[in-house]
């Protein structure tokens, strides 16, 4: 797509969804976090968070690490390098878009 709509179509729609944007932003500022921490920070429900996580994982933006805390299995989530780059690019493009609009 060319013309005036191009900057809009360039925006990563996977990240642009508010719930996923929250998840990406929270994971961007930490090294890794577990599911419960993200649920508390984003205010999303278990089912909602799970569904968005699956989409982000399928896109290769987040990675799930399974390890043990004591004897209990524990799942930590972190942004992949691709996810970090995508978030950076997204925020750059959004900033550019608003700069151009004003």
């Amino acid at each position, binding site marked *: 797509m060319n013309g005036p709509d191009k900057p809009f179509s360039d925006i990563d729609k996977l990240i642009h969804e508010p719930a996923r944007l929250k998840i990406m932003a929270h994971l961007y500022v930490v*090294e890794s976090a577990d599911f419960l921490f993200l649920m508390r920070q984003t205010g999303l429900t278990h089912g909602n968070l799970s569904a968005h996580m699956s989409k982000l994982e399928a896109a290769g933006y987040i990675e799930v690490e399974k390890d043990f805390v004591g004897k209990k299995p524990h799942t930590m989530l972190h942004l992949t390098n691709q996810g970090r780059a995508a978030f950076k690019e997204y925020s750059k493009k959004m900033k550019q878009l608003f700069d151009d609009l004003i």
Partner: protein
Amino acid sequence: MTGNVNLKELEKRAFKSTFQDGLWDIQLGLIILGIALTAFITNDYFLIPYYAVIIVLFIAAKKFITVPRIGLVKFGKERKKSMNKLRLILVISVLFGLAMVLITKRDMLSGIIEFPVGLIIVSLNVLIVFSLMAYFMDFERLYYYAVLVSVSFPMAEILEVNGLISNGSYVFLVSSGIMVITGTVLLIRFMREYSVEKANQ
């Protein structure tokens, strides 16, 4: 630029959420309570197991109360760097404190400096260490505790010297009480707000 500021705020908020449980307040209050207890217990070495128990209880409470309620997080490089700086400051402060105790016990300062100078040094040390902890941890309440505890040292001396209280250590009962009560209120509020049942839903 605004984006950077907001992400910083987000990280700060995430970090702050890990000590909204009041456990730091309780732990620091109990540490200060140790000073007050020296008025009642004659054996000075009781402070070693006392402080060890406090640290063990703090770690256990974080593991069994906080983590099941708000989850687990590993912070980024910047936060790790500032926490390492804080650890270094705490180690230096503890060594300085031990040196001060040793010097006072062996009466090495007699004839060199008067007692109030030592008192001012300890008081300033507490003020600086608590304030640096508050700064590196983005933990505003610690600034108030810094003032509260550092004022307690000269206050204890003044009240005892003027015969208003039989032992200056009682002053620390008040300051530690304020910290422990604040922490307990926060802990109860935290446990009500973040129930384990909700976390498992």
